[in-house]
């Protein structure tokens, strides 16, 4: 059985004495019970407690409390009447805003007087007393403020009437001529600046800055002249006063609410409840708990969550509103035995979406439950639940990141996660040319096929895998060495024409790769330029694209051609940033050029660009473009590679052929998962080594 604590606490840990004497007695008994070791005395105490509880209504405090409640009801009824009476006494010419404020002040004045008498009895009265006191103190200030500004406005309106139109239009004319003069002067100054630039006295940056400054100054001067015109000044004055009024009132109201919120934190609550029952009773209806605890507007938000859960998430999971699928059960059945139009893939995808929706729903349940639980636990301790003002403030302060990242998260989940999970699940099915529109679960059969190298698709897997690995290592390393080497050469102090070389060397990177790859493909075709040149050089009739080894060599060379430019660029950038001091110090220490290279240049550069180099390897592992666009992954070699793959295919182009050309989606999915895991693993390794991660500065 839950007990009562002797003292009430607030969020900082300050303690307050209980005002509810009934609960206080219970608390004292609870304490004695917990400290009592003698069994008999304990039972006696517990009996005493029980009788106290059953005689609740007769406890003197509770009697007084009943009285108070009755008086309160009376008061609340009568105060309404008094309010309307008071309102009628206010002059009708009065501003409606001021009228409203005066009525509020009156209302709170009455409340203050009433609750003052009971503030010793219960914290509720104490709180209401203080709350009204704040209103009584601050509202008159607001009224004064409003009246002050209105007086200013009235005066300004009067002045408006008194503006001499002739004087006004004369000044407007003056403004025009002023503008002309100032503009001329400005342009003159600008000319001067441009001349100084031509003479080379100042830099081009200084020129742009100076011109900007002159333009700004001109604008400013004109604007100031504008404000000398009485009608313009007057209008501006009125406008800013009106704004001041609006903002000032809004600000004061906010401060009022903030002060009340502050008081809420300082005056504890006393409840008879001592266990968070509401939370445990209402987890399935987000919002209900908040409503019961008195947080009405917060409840509305959570009710939206309830609507989402019961109108969208759950029905969808059960199959309603699906395009073709049956929600979660669709995942299992995969449209087996369904209509002709029903596609298993759609069932699967919809099933996955359903799962995500359910996950979101679970998250919402949990969030609401925790919220109610925490509020109740706090209430038991004595902490007052937050009102809407406080909640809103928290949302705006701390909710900003959630709200703004939400759309991005949505995109990421649906664009990245759903397809990947689809692929994962597909790998456990048998989607192939015979089972296109309907397929079934077959467990890890596909993986077995690949691993053992069997079956139509699986037999070539390992062959292709080995070529992929060789390709990755050779092509990337070659590109890196080439790019690095060239960068070093160009960066040498004694080499002239650096800009020329650097511009040309990044061309392979700048020209879109697909264009150059396709063109290389053309040039090595029979009759193409390169083929002809090679033929005349070696006096042969080579057909590069029909020979496996030649194709592979060509691919590696092309990729080196493409990739080295990128490495060149990176290396050059880093090389330029190495301080010359290092080399000078090494020279003093007696290092030769080669040693300087080995011990300073290489380590520094590599360290800086290592993570990017790792991405080059992963990029080439999945470099679809160069393989496919050059020779469609060919040449064909049915003996070794069957009919599905070519001899220069990488795993990724093989996957493409399997899935999109030959409709062996399931096996393609299995291979995809295999590749993806590998890529993710290496990328993750790369991340771990990157600086930011290591320093823990996430």
């Amino acid at each position, binding site marked *: 059985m839950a007990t009562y604590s002797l003292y009430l606490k607030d969020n900082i840990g300050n303690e307050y004495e209980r005002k509810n004497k009934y609960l206080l007695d219970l608390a004292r008994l609870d304490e004695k019970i917990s400290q009592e070791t003698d069994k008999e005395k304990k039972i006696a105490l517990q009996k005493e407690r029980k009788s106290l509880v059953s005689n609740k209504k007769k406890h003197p405090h509770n009697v007084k409390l009943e009285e108070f409640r009755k008086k309160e009801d009376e008061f609340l009824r009568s105060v309404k009447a008094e309010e309307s009476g008071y309102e009628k006494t206010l002059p009708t010419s009065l501003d409606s805003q001021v009228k409203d404020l005066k009525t509020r002040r009156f209302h709170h004045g009455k409340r203050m007087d009433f609750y003052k008498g009971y503030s010793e009895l219960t914290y509720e009265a104490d709180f209401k007393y203080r709350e009204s006191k704040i209103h009584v103190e601050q509202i008159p200030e607001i009224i004064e403020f409003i009246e002050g500004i209105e007086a200013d406005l009235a005066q300004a309106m009067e002045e408006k009437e008194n503006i001499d139109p002739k004087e006004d239009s004369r000044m407007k004319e003056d403004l025009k001529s002023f503008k002309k003069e100032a503009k001329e002067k400005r342009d003159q100054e600008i000319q001067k600046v441009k001349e100084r630039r031509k003479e080379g006295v100042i830099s081009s940056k200084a020129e742009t800055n100076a011109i900007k400054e002159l333009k700004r100054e001109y604008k400013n001067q004109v604007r100031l002249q504008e404000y000398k015109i009485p009608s313009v000044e007057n209008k501006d004055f009125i406008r800013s006063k009106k704004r001041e009024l609006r903002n000032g009132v809004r600000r004061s109201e906010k401060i009022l609410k903030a002060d009340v919120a502050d008081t809420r934190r300082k005056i504890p609550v006393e409840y008879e409840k001592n266990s968070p029952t509401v939370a445990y009773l209402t987890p399935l209806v987000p919002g209900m708990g908040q409503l019961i605890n008195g947080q009405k507007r917060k409840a509305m938000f959570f009710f939206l969550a309830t609507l989402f859960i019961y109108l969208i998430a759950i029905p969808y999971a059960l199959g309603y509103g699906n395009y073709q699928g049956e929600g979660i059960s669709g995942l299992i059945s995969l449209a087996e035995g369904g209509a002709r139009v029903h596609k298993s893939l759609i069932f699967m995808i919809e099933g996955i979406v359903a799962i995500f929706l359910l996950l979101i729903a679970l998250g919402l349940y949990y969030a609401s439950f925790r919220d109610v639980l925490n509020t109740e636990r706090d209430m038991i301790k004595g902490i007052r639940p937050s009102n809407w003002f406080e909640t809103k403030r928290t949302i705006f302060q701390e909710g900003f990141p959630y709200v*703004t990242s939400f759309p991005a998260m949505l995109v990421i989940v649906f664009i990245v996660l759903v397809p990947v999970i689809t692929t994962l699940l597909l790998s456990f099915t048998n989607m192939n040319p015979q089972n296109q529109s309907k397929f079934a679960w077959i467990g890890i059969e596909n993986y077995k096929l690949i691993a053992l190298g069997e079956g139509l698709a699986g037999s070539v897997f390992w062959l292709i895998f080995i070529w992929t690995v060789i390709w990755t290592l050779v092509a990337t390393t070659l590109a890196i060495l080439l790019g690095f080497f060239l960068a070093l050469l160009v960066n040498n102090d004694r080499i002239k024409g650096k800009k020329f070389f650097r511009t040309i060397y990044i061309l392979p990177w700048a020209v879109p790769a697909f*264009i150059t790859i396709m063109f*290389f493909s053309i040039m090595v075709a029979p009759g193409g330029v390169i083929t002809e040149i090679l033929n005349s050089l070696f006096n042969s009739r080579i057909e590069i694209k029909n020979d496996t080894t030649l194709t592979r060599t060509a691919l590696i060379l092309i990729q080196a051609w493409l990739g080295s430019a990128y490495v060149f660029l990176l290396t050059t950038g880093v090389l330029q940033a190495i301080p010359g001091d290092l080399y000078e110090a090494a020279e003093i220490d007696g290092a030769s050029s080669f040693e300087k290279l080995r011990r300073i240049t290489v380590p520094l550069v590599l360290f800086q660009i290592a993570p990017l180099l790792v991405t080059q390897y992963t990029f080439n592992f999945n470099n679809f473009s160069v393989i496919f666009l050059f020779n469609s992954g060919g040449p064909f070699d049915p003996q070794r590679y069957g009919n599905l793959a070519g001899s220069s295919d990488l795993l990724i182009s093989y996957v493409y052929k399997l899935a999109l050309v030959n409709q062996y989606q399931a096996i393609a999915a299995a291979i995809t998962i295999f590749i993806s895991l590998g890529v993710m693993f290496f990328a993750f390794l790369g991340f771990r080594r990157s600086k930011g991660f290591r320093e823990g500065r996430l």
Partner: protein
Amino acid sequence: MTLFGGKKKKDKGLYLSDKPPLTVAGIIGIVTSYTILFAWVVAIVWPLFQMVVSAFNGQQQQYIMGNENFEFSLRHFEFLYNETYYLTWVKNTLFIAISTALLTIVMVSFTGYAYSRYRFKGRKASLMAIMLIQTIPTFAGITAFFTMHSIVSSVIPAFSRQMMLILIYAGPAIASNTFILKGYIDSVSTELDDAAKIDGCSNFDIYRIIIMPIARPMLTIIALWSFIGPFMDYLLAKVLLTSPSTYTLAVGLFTLVSDFRTMNQPAFAAGGLLTAIPIVIMFMVLQKQLVSGLTSGSVKG
């Protein structure tokens, strides 16, 4: 002993260079270097030159041969303009590239700011999750993309394949660029936020008036990278776009080279040239920014 002692600088016979005078070995080294460098220049320029010449060579037929018989003509360009969907492809690619870039920077500006400036529950966890998601290769989901589009477009008919493609490009871009932008904003002192608060800014004001303008260089780089991505991609565009009038440049130009029915290699050369020029210019002009964006992102993690 030096060989070229006094002749290094022709200034009254004074040797003015800070570097020690060249030895024979040094000279050989320099000559070799220049040779290699120029050889590589040729290796780069020659193929590109071939492409340019072929595009203008009226003698070229469907299959490109050597350019010994050169006759200047613009007929390949005319072909491109009149007989193919080239201009449509350009339009499509631009539409997709610009949309991707816009979508990415809008979303990334919010997420980067949120992760940098706020400490909220689940921040670390979701950041780690994004890091991992970044590493998932996009093609891992190709089988699903097509079908997903069918599902969504049955509900919202206006949702075209190109829009799906934009989302597919933007998704991973948002994930990875959030980090980079976050790192960049981290380097902006929080005292600026404090000063802005005292000056009267709300949270959103701080985002809009203070942080975003300062982050503009980084955002520009991110926009550029997300703009360039769609230009360079073949695989995803090929998977999703099925009718020739919706192709992007990569897919469209490939049909001029691969498919017998539409083979016209010189037209491809022409198209490739036209496409390459603006991009090359852009790369040249912005290379410094692009590279600094890469290295700062990776070094700072």
